């Protein structure tokens, strides 16, 4: 019985498997047909408008794909991306008003390499699905560098923080300063704490400045439910 059973089971298994395959096939066909039958597929749309300038879905997808902006974990990438694109456009408008020196070709090439590395193997698909061209990637790289240069020019590469602020930073982030499992004494952690406190202050200053820019701009974000 065993062989028979085994054969039977094998035949059954064959038949079941093919039924599964066929079912899957039909399911995919139905799904595919329904996709086609539902007829329409969104190609692009306006996700936000800043002072009359449109920010499109593909703009957000392209910059996300290149790693120019990153969606925080758990956030809707497009919704979060649209907000970051608004900030980026506000920054670029300021850069345009008080233009920093033009970045040199080598720096742009390095930035392009960084962006394309961020996209990795997905780059051709990204370029196809968002209509991104090499020239646009180059322009995005240029804009990145100009923004960085502008921020350095305006806010300085570092911000001076007082000893008290460094100590305060160390106290509130004590768990971050360890060597092995041991807490690092303040004297030893002081340079790192100073750098981090400085970075944090600079970031906060820039964020506040961008918030202020927003209040002076006409910003409209479209609901993204039906994208």
């Amino acid at each position, binding site marked *: 019985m*065993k*062989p028979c059973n*085994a*054969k039977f*089971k*094998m035949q059954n*298994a*064959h038949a079941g*498997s093919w039924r*599964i*395959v066929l079912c*899957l*096939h039909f399911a*995919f066909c139905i*799904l*595919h047909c329904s*996709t*086609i039958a539902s*007829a*329409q*597929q*969104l*190609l*692009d*749309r*306006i996700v936000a*408008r800043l002072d*009359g*300038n*449109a*920010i*499109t879905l*593909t*703009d957000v997808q*392209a910059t996300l794909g290149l790693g120019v902006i990153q969606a925080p974990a758990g956030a809707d990438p497009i919704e979060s991306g649209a907000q970051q694109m608004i900030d980026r*456009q506000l920054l*670029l408008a300021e850069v*345009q008003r008080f*233009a920093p*020196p*033009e970045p040199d070709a080598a720096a742009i090439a390095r930035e392009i390499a960084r962006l394309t590395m961020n996209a990795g193997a997905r780059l051709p698909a990204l370029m*196809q*699905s*968002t*209509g*991104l*061209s090499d*020239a*646009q*990637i180059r*322009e*995005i790289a*240029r*804009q990145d560098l100009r923004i960085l240069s502008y921020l350095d020019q305006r806010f300085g590469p570092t911000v001076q923080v007082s000893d008290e602020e460094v100590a305060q930073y160390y106290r509130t982030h004590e768990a971050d300063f360890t060597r092995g499992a041991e807490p690092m004494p303040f004297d030893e952690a002081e340079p790192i704490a100073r750098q981090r406190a400085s970075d944090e202050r600079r970031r906060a200053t820039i964020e506040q400045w961008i918030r202020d820019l927003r209040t002076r701009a*006409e*910003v*409209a*974000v*479209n609901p993204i439910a*039906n994208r």
Partner: protein
Amino acid sequence: MTTDKFEVQSEKLKVSIKVLFCLLCTLHFELCTCAYAQGLLITDVRVEQEGQIVTDPLVLGLLETAVGMPLSIRDVRESITHLSALNRYEDVQVYQEPAANGVRLRYALLPVHAVDHIEFRGMLGLPESDLREAATARFGPAPPAGRAEEIVRALALVYRDRGYVRPRITPRIVVTHNPDRASMVLEIDSGPRALIRQIENDAQPGDRAVFANTGIGAGQPYDAAVIQAQLQKYETMLRGRGFYEARATHTVGYAANGAVVRVTIDRGPHVSVAFSGDPLPDADRDRLVPIRAEGSADEDLLEDSSRAIEDYFHDRGYRDAMATYSREETGGELTIRFTIARGQRYVVDRVSIAGHTAVSTVDLAPMVRIKSGDVFVQSTLDAAVGGIRGVYRGRGFTRAMIAPGVGLLPAGERAAPNADRHVQVTIDISEGPRTLVGTVGISGNRVFTDEQIRAWLTVVPGRPYSDIDVASARDRFDLEYRNRGYENVVVEPRAALAEGGTRANIAFAISEGPQVLVDHVIIVGNHRTNTKTIERELTLRPGEPLGYAARIESQQRLSALGLFRRVNITELRHESEPRRDVLIQVEEAPPTTISYGGGLEGGTRLRPIGPNGQAEEHFEFAPRGFFEIGRNNLWGKNRSVDLFTRASLKARDIVLTDTGVRLATPAAGSGYGFNEYRVFGTYREPKVFNTPADVLLTGILDQAIRSSFNFQTREVRAEAGWRLTRSYSIAGRYSFQHTTLFDQRFTPDEEPLIDRIFPQVRLSKFSNSMIHDTRDDLLDPTRGTFLALNSDVAARAIGSEVGFVKTFAQLFDYYRLPVARRVILATAARIGAAHGFPRTVRRVNAAGSVETDVVQDLPASERFFAGGDTTVRGFSLDRLGTAKTISPSGFPTGGNGEVVLNAELRVAAVKGLTGVTFVDAGNIFPRASDLRFTDLRPAAGFGVHYKSPVGPIRVELGFNLHPRELAPGTLERRTVLHISLGQAF
């Protein structure tokens, strides 16, 4: 074994299924994405707005995706960007649908429903007008829907300040269609209003009655604005009484049973100001120490006052003057005491400049505004040093040192202790080496060649080096690049000194950045105006650089059309692309314009008096009015029609006796009436046949009262004008006119032959003119030049009854003198010359026989006349002329030659008034060949101009410097009064 085999086969099957599953997934993904993939042909493009198909060519013209083209996401995004630029859509969604042999595209346009009003509903608690004012003051009458939450927060604060602690405000946007609009509805439940339960007063006993008789008190509704207004009033009262540091504020705390208001009034000390030390004139005290005017005694104000007192004395030669202040507080009385030690006054004894060899004393003198006998002012010396340094820098002396010195001269033995001290001012110049430009290098330029760039340079090898020239060169490069669309160009000049500072090698490093091109030009807001009419004026074109100059030029040209109230040109960026859409937003002006007005003209005219009809000068007022109606932008192509009418109430002829009594029977039809009028109808066709020329067709009906005759003219005219540059224009004109003379004041013997033969004359003439105009204001220029050359040719061959050639040139120049007050020197020169073509005329005389006359004069309407408010102001209207152009009875006949020269000084006074003094000269000559500058008749005078919105109103009195006999036994007037509108020239 079999089981094992089965299990192996089963495993293989599972793997196969997995592989197949993956393949199917991949296949499905590919099927899904293949439609997304670019390259499929577009078979249909549909544009919908809220379910309706859109056929607007403006919208469809902005789509980059077209039937038959391969689908490109980039084109789709471009289309969205263009459509977004219209500012009509809050969202544009593009869908694709599979279709046979390709894809169908559907654009869904979601229109912007702009909020056009705010509605307040529910239990408002406060007057709606208060809420509306609070909302619109900050957000405008039509706020964006996205700011609803901010409006709610702002209104909540308003409610809280008025005692409503917990208002409920819910915003809602109600959308309406056709047209697409929205209302912002604010549903409000104000909740209960807090009553004042208690007022706690933290003030001196004398200030506790601050709310007496104001209605503010326990049991009344709390209203922060009312309380604050009363406290402010009280504070102002205290400050007015000398308590300049008084403060009155309040806070509120809400509790279950009402609001507790806590008022704090701190009077501060009573403040008085005292001066000690050297005296400060009473008249200047309040100006220099404005404590009373400001109602404040804060430290900044006191420091400023101290500095102002010191400056006051420094400017008067007390260079060591010091003013300090102190606060002395005793028993609630604060005395602010300014102690002044002005020291001695210093007077300049002599000024010397030494060490200058490369620059002459003559060139330096204008910089040094110090002279012997002046009081010594340090700031004047500093300005002189700065000026000299600038002169040297401009000539290449980059290391020039200018050292001022002030040497105190010994006082006389018997000099009083406070006597003036004399100083010697020296300016020692150490010129240093002169720096010449060595080499000029240019790098980083790809767009322009070195030769092109060098052509713009004023910095060239061998010339003196100047920072200013280098900065100018940098600005020029920058502008040229920006005009080519390189908006991010950076030009960095660097100068390296060499050879001991005698050579400056200059390098310009150019970083060009990307070129920005115009993608689409999108024109919106033109409902009546043809888009082509706008496009014709634009110098920004698709595919061309987005240049700075082109943008300015486009804006100016559109504004100059006169069709729009507002023209706004904005650039719309394409994400990460150096291309921009240019959005031209226009707001059209009303097509019909109506204007009207009235006024009073006063001038001196010649009138016939007595039985012999001799001329006498009389000042006359003439009311006048005008009405104009125009229709612009006909058929959307900037064509226009205009009808202008003007009439003056004037006596056609007044005949007075020697004693000034009007004759009982004046000439038939004479007397007051609208005897002077002008009707002017114009049709304008701009850019005719796509040329730069504007064509004007004009019909004129004109009747004028002149000194020697009256005339009526009917004329039609065609004129083509070209504006060559901003300041140059030319025009060609043909006119056909018929003129009738009447009411001639001449006796038959005096009347010119041509007027006797042709009391009615038909003229057909060609004219041309060239104008150069750089005036800054047409009505009341302060600088610039106006030059106009006109010439006319009339000939029998083209239908004229008489032939002539006539030229008239006028040059006006306006120059603002470099003085503090606005002083304009205006000068004018006008010269006219004409020559009539001879014509033989046969006529029947009184005796009935035929006579043959040869006439070579110009008809009266074409001859030159001068004298009056716009020419030579010491004479009445048309009075000027040599003996041959004045009839024995004193009336001018006009002539073929004219010269008028004017010079006028216009000095701005106060409140729109300008004082004027002038010198005029001019004359009329019978022939062009008789023109003699030695025969000009002079006049001078003065007057007052008032700057009104329609131009200066002039009242001027002219003096005839050499009066001659007007008519037998009568001299010309010595003074002539003019009242009129507009400048003389």
